[in-house]
């Protein structure tokens, strides 16, 4: 038993009372699930207690995120526990608690100006539109990563009160809110991050999605194995057909490869070594597995898997979206390609063996 088994069990117990549902503009997240998680202290796992969190290690937070991803929990937990929360704490941006969702927005098109509005130091005014914001319209607070104020390197991380902001209702392929927020001279508290801190934050976001992808891929394999074992055609379960076995084995290969690399990237993040390239590799590899695993899962499930009434789409639609969120697969492929060449093509192999 690993140290995280208890965390996993607790999250599963809570998930058991909240079936995944089809997300719509009217019901775009599972507020009941969030409330239960918050009541159990699970929305602050891995964040220090003196900063409003519940304590615990990165591995605990990963376990919470992975379990919720496998259960298709429609809550901003990955964004809060792995990205926005740790970034705000590390940057020392003032916040209250983690009982209400705080999400992340990578907003390169938003500019920031230092302001002196009488609310103390670290005050900024933000202007511009933040697009593809996860859980826009759901999370009342958003950690916005903007361009740094003029004259400074890196980026600004500012905590924005989103309650009064104009929000569009765009969604990803799974119906998860991914709208835009219009910031028109919005005042916020923030801190300037160095370029290295900025890169790490983006990488942590990619790693969060990679963790979710890995967990969801494993669950899809497990559902498909179960279905193939139960569904009888020509007088025997699908799983007894060699053609199906080949497909299931291929899925298992992809799932195992992703898990091995994502685990290694999480450890790299924990050690603070090569965090960016490790996360890039994990995100790219996990994304690449989606094509194979989702395609074969649907193929094995047949027409029932193509319906909203059956559970498979809760994860396959998320897989199709997550692989290009937090930086597209193409983006992170380029980052990784350029990263392993940084020491010259003649040193490619040593560079590869250092990533994880």
């Amino acid at each position, binding site marked *: 038993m690993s140290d995280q088994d208890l965390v996993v069990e607790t999250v599963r117990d809570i998930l058991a009372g909240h079936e995944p549902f089809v997300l719509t503009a009217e019901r775009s997240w599972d507020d009941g699930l969030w409330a239960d998680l918050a009541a159990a202290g699970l929305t602050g796992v891995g964040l220090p207690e003196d900063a409003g969190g519940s304590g615990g290690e990165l591995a605990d937070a990963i376990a919470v995120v992975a379990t919720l991803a496998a259960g298709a929990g429609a809550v901003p937990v990955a964004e809060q526990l792995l990205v926005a929360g740790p970034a705000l704490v590390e940057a020392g941006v003032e916040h209250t608690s983690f009982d209400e969702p705080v999400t992340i927005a990578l907003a390169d098109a938003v500019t920031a100006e230092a302001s002196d509005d009488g609310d103390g130091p670290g005050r900024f005014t933000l202007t511009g539109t933040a697009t593809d914001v996860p859980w826009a319209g759901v999370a009342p607070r958003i950690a916005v990563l903007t361009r740094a104020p003029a004259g400074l390197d890196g980026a600004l991380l500012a905590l924005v009160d989103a309650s009064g902001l104009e929000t569009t209702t765009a969604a990803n392929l799974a119906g998860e809110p991914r709208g835009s927020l219009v910031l028109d001279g919005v005042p916020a508290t923030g801190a300037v991050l160095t370029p290295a801190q900025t890169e790490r934050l983006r990488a942590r976001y990619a790693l969060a999605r990679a963790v979710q992808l890995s967990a969801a891929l494993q669950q899809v394999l497990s559902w498909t*194995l179960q279905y193939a074992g139960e569904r009888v055609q020509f007088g025997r379960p699908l799983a007894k057909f060699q053609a199906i076995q080949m497909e299931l084995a291929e899925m*298992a290969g992809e799932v195992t490869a992703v898990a091995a690399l994502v685990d290694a990237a999480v450890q790299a993040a924990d050690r603070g070594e090569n965090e960016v390239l490790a996360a890039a590799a994990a995100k*790219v590899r996990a994304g690449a597995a989606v094509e194979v695993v989702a395609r074969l899962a649907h193929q094995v499930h047949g027409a029932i898997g193509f319906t909203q009434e059956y559970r498979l789409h809760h994860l396959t639609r998320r897989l199709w979206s997550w692989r290009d969120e937090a930086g597209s697969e193409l983006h992170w492929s380029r980052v990784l*390609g350029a990263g392993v*060449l940084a020491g010259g093509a003649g040193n490619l192999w*040593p560079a590869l063996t250092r990533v*994880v």
Partner: protein
Amino acid sequence: MSSTSLTLAPAPRSAAAEQVREEVREFLAAELAAGSFTTHVDTWLSGVDPAFSKKLGDRGWLGMTWPEKYGGHERTAMERYAVTEELLAAGAPVAGHWIADRQSGPNLLTYGTERQRAEILPRIAAGECFFVIGMSEPDSGSDLASIRTRATRNADGDWVVNGAKVWTSNAHHSHYAIVLVRSSPADPANRHAGLSQLLVDLSLPGITVNPIRILDGGHHFNEVVFDDVVVPGDMLLGEEGNGWHQVTAELAFERSGPERFLSTYPLVAEFARRAEASGDPAQLATLGRLSARLLALRQMSLRIAAALDRGELPTIAAALVKDVGTTFEGDVIDEVRRVVEVPASLDSPDPLGRALAEAQLHEPGYTLRGGTNEILRGIVARGLGLR
């Protein structure tokens, strides 16, 4: 202990492995600089160089995990992993000793008699004794239990062997074969019974080695024909009738190493030079995608090395790595050619064109040798509880 688990625990970091990795890197850089070898694709099949094998033996990089009393060095599987990985990444000529070091030695260590071990293992570890795999036959490929090479006891208690083995890589450079034979008549009720392994000196009378050329014209494969070959009775390996079990264990070693995803790494390295020179974002993205796949395979394979160090024989996980890894080896070719305009030719003035040609002409082998990917997926399916 044979393990049926698909997923293995993460490999712990090994400082000793990292140290020997650096030593091998320095050695290889010096050898390359001295022109002792040139980098090629798939050199664990095609790169036979007894002098190079001897150098590795001298440095203690063969038989690494074996007991010292058999010429080994009592190092970990993680250390051996680092050494083999460095050699493959450099495209070094390792084919001579590869089979002996990877699977024949461990097989002897587990099943050999004291005399067999004492005589042969130190020579393998010195890089002086090469082995071939005597499993496949003209009429028996994936269906290994259907082999027909027979061994019968004569009046002196020796074995008389008749039959033929194929795809025996580098038999023309090798000293011994471990030959899977039918030592008692086939039993339709138990196809795996009645098989045994014999340790056969390839210089014995009655053995003919006929070349079989692969697609690029290279001579690596052979047909080895046994015509009333008298093999001394004490050259039975392991137990009579236990051949199937022994061969299965041997295959776990055969399937688990980094050569199952690094055969075309020299092509990746050559492509990286192109991507660096061009700065083309599409090429960088391709390099990134290939890197991500390779890094995942490394983690899977490292986990297997760590499992070997724990005394496990992760049969199913090894089948899985080989399936995913050899698929990657072939995919490298097409990933590269989709973003670089360079004709593949063994005569190309461009090293990338030559690497592409070598990789392409060897490609059909990646997903066949050591068990076809269909057979491997069958093993994985069994691990998933489907069979």
